[in-house]
C-alpha cells in the first residue's frame, strides 16, 4: 500500500460520503428494480390444477383379465388394472420416487416402474425398490357400460 499524507482513520469528506451513499443506494435500487421483474418473469404463472373428481377410465369389457391400462385423470396419468378375478383397481400412475409413469406387469401381478425398478403391490403399497410412498389409490365403480374412477373422498 502506498503511503499517503492523509491518515487512514480520516475517511472521505462528509459530503462525499453522502453522495456515495445516495449514489450507491440509487444504483442498488435500480438493479433490484430491474432484476425483480426478470426473476418473476422466469417463474411461470401457476396453472390451476384440474379438479375433476371422477373420470370414465374405460368401457366394461375393454380390458382383459390380468391387464392394465393408463388413462388420463385430470392432467396426470392413472392406471386401471383388471385383476385375474375380473375386478378393477385404479391407482395414480405417477411413481412416488421420481415421477415416472408406472405400468401393470402381467407376469408378476404387480405394478412396476421401469425407470428405477420400483415395485408396488395391487394395494398400491411400495414393496421393493426406491419408491418412498405408496401410490394413491382411487375408487372404481362400474356404472352401466362405464368403468368410473374417482378420487377417494
Amino acid at each position, binding site marked *: 500500500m502506498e503511503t499517503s499524507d492523509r491518515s487512514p482513520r480520516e475517511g472521505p469528506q462528509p459530503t462525499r460520503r453522502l453522495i456515495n451513499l445516495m449514489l450507491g443506494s440509487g444504483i442498488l435500487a435500480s438493479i433490484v428494480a430491474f432484476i425483480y421483474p426478470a426473476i418473476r418473469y*422466469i417463474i411461470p404463472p401457476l396453472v390451476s390444477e384440474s379438479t375433476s373428481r371422477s373420470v370414465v377410465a374405460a368401457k366394461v369389457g375393454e380390458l382383459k383379465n390380468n391387464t392394465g391400462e393408463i388413462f388420463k385423470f385430470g392432467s396426470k*396419468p392413472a392406471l386401471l388394472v383388471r385383476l385375474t378375478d375380473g375386478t378393477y383397481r385404479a391407482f395414480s400412475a405417477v411413481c412416488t420416487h421420481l415421477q415416472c*409413469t*408406472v405400468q401393470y406387469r402381467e407376469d408378476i401381478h404387480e405394478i412396476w416402474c*421401469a425407470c428405477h425398478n420400483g415395485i408396488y403391490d395391487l394395494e398400491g403399497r*411400495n414393496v421393493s425398490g426406491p419408491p*418412498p410412498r405408496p401410490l394413491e389409490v382411487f375408487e372404481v365403480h362400474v356404472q352401466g357400460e362405464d368403468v368410473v374412477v374417482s378420487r377417494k373422498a
Partner: protein
Amino acid sequence: MTTVYRRVLSWLDERFGAGSIEEFLRHKTVPVHRHTVWYYFGGMTLFLFIIQVLTGILLLLYYRPTPNDAFESVQYVMTQVRFGWLIRSVHSWSANLMIFTAFVHMFSVYFLKAYRKPRELTWITGMLLLFLVMGFGFSGYLLPWNTLAFFATKVGTEMAGSIPVVGKWLLIYLRGGEEVTGATLTRFFGFHVAVLPGLATLLLAMHLLLVQRLGMSVPPGVEKAIGEGRQPARSMPFFPNFLLRDIMGWYAALGVLGALAAIFPWELGTKADPFAPAPAGIHPEWYFLFMFQTLRYIPAKVIFLEGEFAGLLAFGAAAAVWVAVPFIDYKAGFGRVTRFFTGLGVFALGYMAVMSALALR
C-alpha cells in the same frame, strides 16, 4: 505468396501489433515426454465443440421447439432434408464423443496433477465447462421430444426438485411449470441454444487464455526426473509442430465421427406420450448411467433424508471436492505427490465404470 503474407502481416502489425502474436506463437513450446499424448485431448474436445456449434446451427434451420412439432421436425430433417440424417447423426455422435474426450482430458489432467499451482483456475474453468457440457447433453436430449427423453427429463428435473427449500422453485424454473410439458421443451431449447453456448464461450475463452498464459504443465514425475538430471527437458515448438499434430488428430477424429454417424445413424425413437408408461429398459445417456444406477440402489430413506436427495447430496459433495482438488491437494504444488489423491481418482473412475456397467447389464 510470401511477400503477400509479409505485407498483410505488416499492415496488421501497424494497426494492432499483430507481430507480437506471431512472436508469441514462435516462442510457445510444448513439453515432450512420455505423457505428451494426453495434451491432445483438450484440443480434441475443442474441435468437437466447434463441430457441435456448426451442426447445431444447421439443425436450427429446420427444428421447431414445440411438443406438437419437435418430434415431427426432427423426423422431417432425418427423412426429407438432404443429408439431414447425417447432420443430426453427426451432432449426436459428436456430442457423445465430446463428452468422452472431455472426460479423458479431465482425468488425464487429474492423474498428471496438472491442476496444481499455478493452474488452479484452469482446472476450475475446465470443471465448469465439463458441467456445462453435461448440461448441453441433458438439455439437448429432450429436444427431439421422444419417449426416452421425456422420462429422462422427468427424472432429472424431479431430482433437482428433491432439494429441500429451493427444490420446488428450481423444478418449476427448469420445467416451466409443475410438469414436463411444452413449456419445458421451450426452456430447454433456450438453455441449449442460447444460455449454455453463451456461458460456454465465455468460460472457454478464459480456459484457453489461461492455458496460453501458463503453458502446458509438466507432470511432477517428469519434472523431478528433469531436475535430477535423469532425463533431458525436451520440447517442441507449438507452431507449427504441435499444432500440425493437433490438426492430424482432429482429422482422425473427423474420420471416426463421419464413420460412426454414417454407419450407425442416431435413432429417433418414438414420440413422447405423457400418458404412456415408462418403457422397459429405459436408461439415460451413458455419461449419466453411474448416477442413474446409484439411484436404483439408494433406499427410499437414508437416515432422515429422502433417498434421491441423499444421492444428490453425495454427488454434489463429490463434485465440490473434485472442483476444489487443487486447493485440497495443495502439496502437489510443491511437487509432493500424495498417493491418496491418485487413489481417489482411481476410485472415482472405477466407481463410474462399475456402476455404468451394472446399469447396462
